[in-house]
């Protein structure tokens, strides 16, 4: 598939981030004669395309679920850092009950502090000042939300292609049914004329 840069409206794209667009067929008969396919092969081709689209859709939906779980996590972290920052000037310690293990909680006394540690993943934790931590978390939140938007747009494009393909399959099927009916009528007409 040639990689055209995705720009403009979704209708003009021949593909989007690796997902090929489903070509809209103006007229079934012309399409079948141009591609020199018979109805069954055309149907098989489009069915396979549909399956491929479904596979990609599953993948995108899984990515969407992951992102949708990540965003509230980041927001929670931001809330905690915000609370610590708000307490900074007062000098009083923050008493917090946290979960040590499932069902077991313990009390922590968090002194007035300037820094927090952030878990970055891959067994790495770094210490930041409250401002730096807030900035980093906000940045992560922005990126996650932007990725989610792109993903949602991809899913919409994909679903459009699925719809186009389903309608195409229906039309080719109807065309085929029609052709068979015509063929059935024609021989009976000839036999009626002979007798």
């Amino acid at each position, binding site marked *: 598939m040639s990689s055209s840069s995705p720009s403009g409206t979704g*209708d003009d794209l021949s593909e989007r981030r690796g997902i090929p667009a489903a070509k*809209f067929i*103006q*007229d079934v008969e012309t399409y079948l004669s141009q591609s020199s396919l018979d109805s069954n092969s055309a149907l098989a081709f489009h069915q396979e395309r549909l399956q491929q689209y479904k596979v990609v859709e599953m993948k995108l939906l899984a990515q969407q679920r992951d992102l949708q779980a990540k965003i509230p996590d980041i927001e*929670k*972290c931001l*809330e*905690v850092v915000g*609370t610590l920052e708000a307490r900074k000037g007062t000098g009083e310690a*923050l*008493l*917090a*009950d*946290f*979960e040590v293990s499932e069902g077991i*909680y313990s009390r*922590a006394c968090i002194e007035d502090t300037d820094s927090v540690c952030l878990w970055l993943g891959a067994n790495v934790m770094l210490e930041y000042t409250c401002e730096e931590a807030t900035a980093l978390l906000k940045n992560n939140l922005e990126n996650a939300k932007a990725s989610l938007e792109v993903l949602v747009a991809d899913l*919409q494009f994909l*679903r*459009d292609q*699925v*719809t*186009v393909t*389903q*309608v195409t399959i*229906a*039309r080719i*099927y*109807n065309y085929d*049914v*029609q052709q068979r009916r015509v063929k059935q009528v024609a021989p009976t007409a000839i036999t009626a004329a002979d007798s």
Partner: protein
Amino acid sequence: MQQQGKSSGSEMEVTWEDQQNINTFSRFNNRLHELVDEIKFAKEKCDNLEDAGNELILADEEMVRFQIGEVFAHVPKDEVETRIEEMKEATIKSLEKLEQEKESLVLQMAELKKVLYAKFKDSINLEED
């Protein structure tokens, strides 16, 4: 996709405009299902905040354990009340916005249904099954 049924074998010309209408209807329908879930979630959150507020009035402790992130911080009762009020207002506002979006979506879908049924009559099925 549960909404689109197969045509019943009659000769129907499908133009690009028709295809786009069908695509748009499908998008609207998906968004409607998402909205229904989001509205349900927001309503539950509202109810929970309401219950929390009521519990707070009945409680006689000065310090309340209020969940911030993953931990429960010891916060004075008044501050908790204020926070719960703020959260309730924010949730109600977002619930209103979601309901409005849902209404407008339902109207647009009804319009599209009229157009598509006019063109395709029996050959298309746009109902939930």
